């Protein structure tokens, strides 16, 4: 701890003797809480706070404040952004100023927000509706307004500016002041220079008219309400404190203003309660370095200085207690919550201190400068928020460091997030055997999680060393008679498809590290299917805790879904007795049609994957030497054969292929009309007419299709080789009432018969690699009815209009859906949790936080109510 120096009164508080160790309460030395490392060094701290979320903007974040529900941030471009502290969704964005928003201040029980900026304006906002209440300006040329505070008691706002002045406006007197005429308004007054005439007598045009609030909202500061040279530097920061009674300076119980300036001085100002005027009562000087930030805890004042030092003053005695050179660069922001003090510097590092100013931890919170910070408590957790010139707001859970103080109630949503973060960290890639261990650990973690929330849970082994299936059962109370014995089966999977972890490739975050950004959670599997599985787990767990669960909720979470559910069918059949009877099946493994309207999925297509190979008995040959019209080349044969699959306009030519497809009923037609109406005017669809959209969706969802995925050849595939073999991967998506086995036979026999007409001496081989039956649910059944009600209630929360979910089908396949229905003789329903833009299987897979929380709420409703129907 290089910078920690105790006060030595002899030399004005700056001694060079290092403090050897920390002292505990009894005065005994203890080890420093954290291993110290110099800033910029690569050492990893042990007590890093958890990054809960990161929100990105397109400019620097210069100011922050936080209420119980909302985060307010001011940007370089003059915007104020408001995010929900629960879901990190952008609630509001307001173009508030013409210059950087330098300070935000919440007052009057978080009902009023003050903002000050580089445009010399102080704006007053309703903190809930974001109505602009007042716009205050000074007749002086103040430049940037770096700080603003508001005294609710005196109804007076004080602000400090670049021209070294502190000014104030008494809102009580606003109706007594003369009406502003704009002639003195910073962006409207006539300026000797800016409105002067150039050569030819022309005045430089004013910038395009700026938004000026109506005069009813404009307030002009009384030119008498100023202390010029309040500092001999820019007035960077201010605090308003309530005086403890019995203080020798200032009145009892009144308020006092503190200001910090670029001249390295902190000034204490007494306030005249009658006039709101301020008088300098005391100056505290810590040297030459500017005071950029201040925070106060009890009577201790913490000042962040321009050169990385932090000075601590005891306001009771007005003594410099300590001066620590802690950061390498300017300490731009300080925040206090409870017993914790946070400092943030231009190096991008945050530090956390306890009340005795012992260093607790240090971590890099931004890649650039940390410009603003705020702290609050939420659900017993200590939340620390930072903003930087890397255009980010970062939200940290610092409670792990808060010394047991807050190991209390964490909200269910917090626990859900925490568990999801853990589950995502397991690289449960089923397609790559080298991750088998990760898969097993992921499964074990899930099993334990089920147990922790009151379920019985086991791992069902799969044959051939496949990943195990997690089987769990939450037992209902069963007191409500007829519900006893009813069971809902929730099916999901914990395996994921691979993700590139090399830096700079694809992902903007680390795929196996759950990262919150802009209201979304990023990570492989977060949407497909780990997030929805945990939403279901927590939904059931919470019902058990609340003793609201009547029926049993059973879970089958498999680990091979992304690899064609290998071994699932066998394992389920083997454990049929253990699993028992099932009344309903629920899945949550797909996406909405777009990003806005909740959906329910009632159909999935089936699939047949096949490989077609044509090979000769010769080796790879040189085309210049061996190429001949007499030579039957495997690749040419294959291409000719593939050409037989479709007509030149794309129609599938396998005989009888489309005949069993179920005709469109009027009821079905209606569902498509509902969807079309909902999306026809959305930007993504606006290039299509309603009829085209309907056609588009139907052909993806309820009609079969054929795809050739790839054609590959043997050998080095350069342009002089005749490959000895060529293969193609093809697939057919099939729909009710196409019978899987019939379609399969048709495909094989069609290819074979066509091939035989080629009279080629090359051999044809066809293998079926994977198959899945289509699934079509009944949107009229109880499961869908209950889901629909729940979706409407949960997603319409707070809105007047209840939006009915869209009933959609999907072009994709989930092989187990139909299998489970058949196996247990129970109907399945499918709740899509994520949005269309979730990027499942792609880079930057994500799930919106709101969708995770709402999905949990919906599933909770369904688990509770469906068995009662």
């Amino acid at each position, binding site marked *: 701890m290089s910078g920690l120096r105790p006060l030595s009164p002899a030399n004005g508080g700056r001694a060079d003797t290092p403090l050897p160790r920390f002292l505990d309460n009894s005065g005994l030395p203890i080890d420093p809480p954290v291993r110290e490392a110099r800033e910029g060094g690569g050492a990893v701290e042990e007590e890093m706070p958890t990054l809960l979320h990161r929100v990105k903007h397109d*400019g*620097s974040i*210069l100011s922050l404040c936080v209420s119980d529900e909302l985060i307010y941030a001011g940007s*370089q471009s003059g915007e104020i952004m408001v995010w929900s502290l629960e879901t990190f969704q952008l609630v509001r964005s307001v173009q508030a100023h*013409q*210059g*950087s928003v*330098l300070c935000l201040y919440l007052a009057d029980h978080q009902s009023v927000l003050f903002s000050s900026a*580089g*445009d*010399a304006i102080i704006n007053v906002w309703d903190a809930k509706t974001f109505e602009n209440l007042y716009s205050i300006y000074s*007749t*002086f*040329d*103040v*430049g*940037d307004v*770096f700080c603003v505070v508001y005294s609710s008691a005196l109804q007076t706002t004080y602000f400090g500016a*670049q*021209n070294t*002045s502190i000014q104030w406006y008494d809102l009580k007197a606003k109706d007594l002041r003369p009406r502003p005429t704009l*002639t*003195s308004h*910073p*962006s409207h*007054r*006539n*300026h*000797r*220079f*800016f*409105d*002067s*005439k*150039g*050569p030819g007598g022309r*005045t*430089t045009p004013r910038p395009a008219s700026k938004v000026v609030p109506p005069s009813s909202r404009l307030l002009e500061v*009384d*030119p*008498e309400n*100023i202390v*010029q*040279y309040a500092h*001999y*530097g*820019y007035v*960077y920061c201010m605090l308003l404190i309530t005086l403890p009674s019995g203080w020798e300076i200032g009145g009892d119980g009144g308020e006092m203003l503190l200001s910090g300036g*670029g*001249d390295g001085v902190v000034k204490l100002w007494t306030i005249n309660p009658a006039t709101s005027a301020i008088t300098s009562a005391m100056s505290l000087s810590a040297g*030459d370095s*500017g005071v*950029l930030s201040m925070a106060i805890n009890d009577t201790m004042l913490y000042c962040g200085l*321009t050169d990385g030092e932090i000075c601590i003053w005891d306001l009771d005695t007005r003594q410099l207690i300590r001066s620590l050179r802690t950061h390498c660069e*300017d300490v*731009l922001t300080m925040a206090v919550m409870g017993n914790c003090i946070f400092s943030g510097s*231009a190096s991008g590092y945050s530090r956390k201190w306890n009340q005795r100013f012992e260093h607790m931890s240090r971590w890099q919170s931004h890649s650039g*400068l940390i*410009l603003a910070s705020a702290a609050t408590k939420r659900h017993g957790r200590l939340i620390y928020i930072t903003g930087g*010139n890397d255009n980010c707001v970062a939200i940290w859970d610092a409670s792990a460091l808060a010394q047991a103080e807050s190991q209390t109630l964490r909200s269910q949503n917090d626990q859900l997030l925490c568990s999801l973060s853990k589950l995502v960290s397991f690289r449960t890639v089923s397609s790559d055997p080298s991750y088998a261990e990760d898969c097993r650990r992921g499964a074990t973690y899930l099993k334990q999680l089920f147990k922790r929330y009151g379920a019985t849970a086991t791992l069902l082994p799969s044959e051939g060393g496949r990943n195990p299936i997690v089987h769990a059962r939450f037992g209902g109370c069963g007191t409500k008679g007829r519900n006893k014995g009813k069971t809902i089966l929730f099916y999901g999977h914990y395996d994921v498809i691979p993700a590139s972890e090399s830096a700079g490739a694809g992902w903007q975050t680390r795929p196996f590290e759950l990262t919150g950004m802009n209201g979304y959670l990023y990570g492989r599997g977060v949407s497909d299917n780990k997030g929805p599985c945990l939403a279901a787990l927590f939904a059931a767990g919470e019902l058990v805790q609340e003793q609201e669960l009547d029926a049993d909720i059973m879970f089958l979470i498999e680990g091979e879904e992304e690899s064609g559910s290998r071994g699932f069918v066998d394992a389920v059949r083997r454990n049929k007795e253990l699993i028992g009877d099932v009344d309903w099946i629920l899945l949550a493994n797909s996406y909405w049609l777009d990003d806005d309207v909740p959906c329910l999925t009632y159909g999935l297509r089936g699939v047949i994957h096949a490989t077609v190979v044509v090979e000769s008995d010769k080796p790879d040959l040189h085309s210049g030497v061996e190429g001949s019209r007499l030579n039957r080349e495997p690749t040419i044969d294959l291409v000719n054969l593939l050409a037989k699959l479709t007509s030149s306009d794309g129609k599938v030519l396998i005989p009888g292929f489309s005949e069993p497809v179920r005709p469109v009923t009027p009821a079905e037609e209606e569902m498509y009309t509902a969807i079309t109406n909902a999306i026809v005017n959305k930007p993504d669809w606006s290039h299509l007419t309603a009829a085209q959209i309907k056609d588009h969706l139907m052909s993806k969802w309820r009609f079969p299709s054929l795809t050739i995925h790839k054609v590959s050849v043997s050998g080095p595939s350069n342009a002089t080789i005749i490959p000895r073999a060529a293969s193609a991967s093809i697939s057919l998506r099939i729909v009710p009432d196409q019978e899987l086995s019939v379609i399969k036979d048709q495909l094989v026999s069609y290819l074979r018969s066509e091939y035989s007409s080629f009279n080629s001496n090359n051999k044809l081989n066809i293998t079926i690699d994977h198959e899945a039956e289509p699934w079509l649910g009944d949107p009229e059944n109880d499961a869908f009815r209950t889901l629909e009600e729940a979706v409407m209630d949960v997603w319409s929360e707070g809105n007047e209009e209840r939006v009915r979910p869209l009933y959609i089908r999907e072009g994709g396949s989930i092989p187990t859906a139909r299998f489970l229905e058949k196996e247990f003789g129970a109907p399945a329903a499918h709740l899509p949790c994520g949005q269309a833009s979730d990027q499942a299987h792609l880079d930057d897979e994500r799930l919106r936080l709101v969708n995770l929380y709402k999905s949990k709420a919906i599933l909770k409703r369904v688990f509770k109510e469906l068995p009662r129907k």
Partner: protein
Amino acid sequence: MCRFLVYKGTNPILLSDLILNPTHSILTQSYDCRLRLDSLPHNGDGFGVGYYTTPTLSTEPCIFTSTTPAWNCVNLSRLAKKTASSLVFAHVRATTSGALSESNCHPFSYGSLMFMHNGHIANFKKIKRAIVSAIRDEYFLMVEGSTDSEWAFAVFLDTLHSLGHSPKSPPEVQNERAGGGGGFGHGVLRQAMLGTIRRLNEFLDEAGTGEPSLLNFAATDGHSVVCTRYVCSRTDEAASLYFSSGTRFHEYKEGGFYRMERHDRGQDLVMVASEPLTFERGDWVTVPTNSILTINKQTVLIHPIIDKYYQQNPAYSRSAAFAESKGMVAEPVVSSKSVKSGTKKPAARNGKDVHPTDADRLPSGSDEGE
């Protein structure tokens, strides 16, 4: 009269971004300066640019001066496009005293120090002999030209000397004294500058000249900068001076449309100028009359100069008439009637009794609208 410009930044700036390109660069100001009355062309009596290079070359500044009007100097634009420095002084000149000669072009330098002046010393002839006899030989001998400004610089050097600092002393010696900050330290420079103004006032009082002097000075030792905006009067306005600070000076639109951007609360760039370099009204702040602006590292300090000419009341409105008559301030576009003749006495305002003719004027903390 003249125009000057000071740049100090964390990073070097290309001179052309400072003195050539901006819409109202000092080059433009030499033929289109707004804050004065007399007719065109104006600052055509030469110009000068002084800047510091890397310390390995020398701690002394490089100074380029010419009696050619700045807009005619092709060498200036060649040099400016290829020269960068993090501390730059620039000056365009219209003679008030002293002949048209390169030795009369600002900035002046002595050792690592650099100095320039915008304004004039009233009845300089009456006090020149007093100055000559008051200063030490080395500073008397330094003066090569014939301007009041250069003699003011000599007084500055002599005052610095009297404070116990040798103006010639090598930077490492200065550095030690300044506590590692480099140079003499901003406090010493400020003291020397305030001492200079005090001594000039003494000379002037002794000579009994009634006319106010306009003393906008800028001085630097290559590390800290001090600039004054000062007039020897309680009622008159000083010559104009503006400053601007931010984190990026950026040409957002072709054609010299620069803007001072603020990505954080730091002051990576600080500029002080007689006239703003751009027409971005939010970017330029008035330096209060009779104050001294200091740039220490990248922190801007503003101290009042408290003497008999200081006005306690920040809402007091000084008259711009005198500065106008000296060609230092332009007529306002709209509210010209109130300050036209220079006979009107400025009125203190206290919010309640606003003088009717003052209704569209601003109090003097800002000197807009006058």
